[in-house]
Structure formats: structure tokens, C-alpha cells
């Protein structure tokens, strides 16, 4: 504890209504549309999670065999329930019961990577936990311990999920390479290939723009001048890091779009637009 010399204050009244502060009853005097951002966050994040749960739990329309399009929501497909052609890394498990996502090995890691991400933390602390809902808007909670206690102290494990996310991005890259697949084998390019490629590039950008990545590559140094290569890498990651929020949202969109496109092609609703073979 800090050796504070602040005089103790009476405990009656909390927050901006604490004794001694300007007595203003309003929770906030903001006149702008501060509710818009948290509301939009709740709607978009909830919608995305709902889509992901439905998409992965249905265990269908995740793979287009002709062009080897494998949905990122089902990759790596390592269960005997997967289409044999989609089992690029073998079958590690037997048949899955209904509702269990095929990519059960990596989905918890990816979810944890996003849950502990410094940007998403800001987003959901504000939008879901209202802590605070917006700047200078009083939060509804009587007590606050931040990230000092269980379970939020686990947010400090973000870097481990970053390491996992790097490995999973390698797998996604492999999937994108395999998607350069012609109808009868050999090389081919279709709209699905382009969509998967864009998705994986953006996933790499989001993963490498992570604050933990910025720290590991060079942020932890005290002497940039003694480590010119790491300093250069740090400057590049810092440029990406400045776009971390945008990349966080964009990749949610591209993941969903990629999965939806593959599902539609797989179900025969859409035909894949082929550019080559």
C-alpha cells in the first residue's frame, strides 16, 4: 500500500457524491451521445458471439471440398467427425457429439486471446460491465478492485494467449495456401481464396499489433540504442498497434464473412466465382 498521507474522509456518499466534492446530483452532465459507443459494442459483440456459437455448433457447411475452403471457425479440423479431406493435421479425437465445435482445441485459446486483449478489455469493461460506461459518467458499482483480484488478475496472462494466437495464425495461413486449389486438383483461385487470404492477412495484422507483442519485441527494453534490430521491429509493431482497435473489429468482420461465404458455397446456395481453374 502507498504511504498515503491523505486525510481519511467520511464514508457516507460515494463517487462524485463523496463528501467534500461539488454537490451535483446528476450521474453525468454530458450532453453528447455517450450511450452510442457502449450500446453499439454490446450489439456487435453479442451478435458476433451468437453467430459464432450457432456456426460452430451446427457442425455443418464448414468445408468446400472442391476448392479446399476450410472455415476458420473449424480449423484445425482434428476430429473423426470432420470431412476426411479437411483433416489436414490428422484426427486427434474420435467422433464428436452434436453441438461440440470441431475446432475445440483452438477456439478457447482464440477466445481467451480476444477476452484478455487490451482493446477488448476496454470495450467490454465499458459496454457490458459499465465500469465506466463512458468517460466522466458514473459507474453503477459501489466497490471497485480493478484487475487486482481473481478472476480479473488472469488478464495478466494475455501474452500466453498471444503465443497461441501466433501458432493458430500459422494454421490459418496454411489453410489459405491450401485454398489455392483447382476444382480437379492443382492450382486454382476463386473468390473464396481471396476472401481467405484477406482474412488471414488481417488476422496476422491483428495478432502482431497486440500490446503484448509490442512489449515482447522491444517494449521491455530500457536501451533501444543497444538493440537496433529489436528497436526497428518495435517501431513497426507500434505502427500496427496504433490500429489495434480497428483491426480487432475488422477481423471479427472478416472471420464472420469468411465463415459465412464458405457456409453458403458449401451448402450450394452460392457458386464460387472462379478466377483461375
Amino acid at each position, binding site marked *: 500500500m502507498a504511504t498515503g498521507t491523505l486525510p481519511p474522509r467520511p464514508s457516507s456518499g460515494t463517487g462524485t457524491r463523496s463528501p467534500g466534492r461539488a454537490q451535483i446530483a446528476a450521474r453525468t452532465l454530458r450532453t453528447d451521445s455517450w450511450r452510442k459507443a457502449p450500446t453499439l459494442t454490446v450489439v456487435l459483440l453479442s451478435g458476433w458471439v451468437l453467430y459464432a456459437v450457432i456456426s460452430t455448433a451446427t457442425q455443418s457447411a464448414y468445408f468446400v471440398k472442391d476448392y479446399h475452403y476450410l472455415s476458420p471457425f473449424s480449423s484445425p479440423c482434428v476430429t473423426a467427425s470432420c470431412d476426411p479431406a479437411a483433416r489436414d493435421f490428422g484426427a486427434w479425437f474420435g467422433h464428436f457429439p452434436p453441438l461440440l465445435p470441431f475446432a475445440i482445441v483452438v477456439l478457447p485459446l482464440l477466445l481467451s486471446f480476444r477476452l484478455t486483449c487490451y482493446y477488448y478489455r476496454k470495450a467490454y469493461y465499458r459496454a457490458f460491465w459499465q*465500469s465506466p460506461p463512458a468517460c466522466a459518467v458514473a459507474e453503477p458499482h459501489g466497490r471497485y478492485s480493478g484487475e487486482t483480484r481473481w478472476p480479473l488478475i488472469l488478464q495478466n496472462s494475455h501474452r500466453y494467449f498471444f503465443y497461441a494466437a501466433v501458432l493458430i495464425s500459422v494454421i490459418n495461413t496454411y489453410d489459405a495456401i491450401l485454398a489455392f486449389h483447382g476444382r480437379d486438383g492443382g492450382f486454382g483461385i476463386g473468390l473464396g481464396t481471396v476472401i481467405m487470404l484477406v482474412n488471414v492477412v488481417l488476422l496476422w495484422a491483428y495478432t502482431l499489433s497486440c500490446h503484448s507483442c509490442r512489449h515482447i519485441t522491444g517494449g521491455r527494453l530500457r536501451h533501444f540504442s543497444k538493440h537496433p534490430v529489436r528497436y526497428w521491429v518495435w517501431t513497426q509493431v507500434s505502427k500496427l498497434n496504433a490500429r489495434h482497435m480497428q483491426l480487432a473489429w475488422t477481423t471479427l468482420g472478416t472471420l464472420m464473412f469468411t465463415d459465412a461465404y464458405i457456409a453458403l458455397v458449401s451448402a450450394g446456395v452460392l457458386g464460387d466465382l472462379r478466377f483461375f481453374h
Partner: protein
Amino acid sequence: MGYQASFRVWRGDVTGGQLHDFTVPVNEGEVVLDIIHRLQATQAPDLAVRWNCKAGKCGSCSAEVNGMPRLMCMTRMSTFDQAETITVTPMRTFPVMRDLVTDVSFNYTKAREIQSFAPPADLAPGEYRMRQVDVERSQEFRKCIECFLCQNTCHAIRDHEDNKQSFAGPRFLMRIAELDMHPLDTADRQRAAQEEHGLGLCNITKCCTEVCPEHIKITDNALIPLKERVVDRKYDPLVWLGNKILRR
């Protein structure tokens, strides 16, 4: 073109107070502080307001304009609709002294609790040498004008008076980060940041960054890097193991 603006200004002291309505002339190019000064000159000669440079560099005229923590001297009247009623209150995190003036001594107490720069014992003043790239990193933090708007908006203390004892606030955690990134500093800042200055209370909701009039990226460049350094020190077993092995 001038117009008549509607203002609501909080007036009172520690015993109580309320918002008072005023109609004040506004001229082109003016800022909120100009209007507060006009109020003082024409309608409320005893209105208390702290100010100094009128150029956004002294950090004195911090207040809340339409509920947002701002420097009054840097808030242009042209950003408001002419029909809008503009509400000006003192900062709501610190004890009020009178009208728009608050007691910000909390911040000076917190500043004193941070160990000052600790160079190596064998290095005398005048012998410090640093490369430009090492200087540049903390230069951003030196732009701080100590207006305490970040401290004011941080919900960890704004909404929780009881945290004031254990939480230094974004301005002073940024100071710790600056010292921890200093190539010549030898003090153990990381453990102190978490255990003595309450870094764990920060939930990185970025309000400090949003209100900073110097546009310092407090959260991204100071608080999160400091949190990651604390993880190195306290929560990452691999880094702990690596340090053990390398020291042998």
C-alpha cells in the same frame, strides 16, 4: 458574429452549491474561459476560477464543460451550437474549494510518493549520456502539463473515493513508466507500481487518454507497457525462469 449564450455555472463551496443560469455575450473566436471571465467582469464578480496562461500550457483552468473534463482555455465556443446551454462545473473528483476551483493536493501527495530518478551510484551528474532513441521514448510523457484532467476522469478514483489511498492515478503511473523506461534509472519501479501505486486498479478504459489536452497516449504508451513490465516481474513464470538461468 456575436450572440447571447446560455450558461449554467456551478457555484458553491464544500457546504453545498448549485448550478446558476446566466446569459452572456459571446464573440467570434472566444473560448469558454473568455466567457467565464466575462461573467466575472459583468455579472458575478466573486466567481472563483483558477487560470493562468490561457494557452493550454499551464494546466490551471481544468473544469468540466458539458460534463466532459476539459481545459476551459482550449474549449472553443465555436464547437457548441449557439442555442445550446453550456454547463460548467468544477472537476468532480477532487474536493471543491469554491465555485470552479478544486483542491488538487491529492495529486501533489501522490507525486511525493514516487521515488525520484535514481541514477547509478558511480555516475555523477554531468556524466549522464543517452542516445536520442532512448530519450525520445519518454519525451512524450514530458509533455504533461499536470492539468490533472486524467486524474479527474479516471473512474478508479472518481467513482471510488476509497481508492484514493492506494491508487496513484494515470498521471503518476505514467511518471513511473517514464522512469522505468529511463536507461539510467536503477530503482525497482515495477514491483512498486503494482504493490504501492495501485497499477492493478487500472482497467485500461482509456478515459485518461481521451481527455489529455496534450494528446499523450497515456494508456497505450505508458500504462499498458508498465502493466506488461509488471507481468514480466510478477506473473510470467517463463520470464522468471529465464532470468534465473541467465543470472547463473
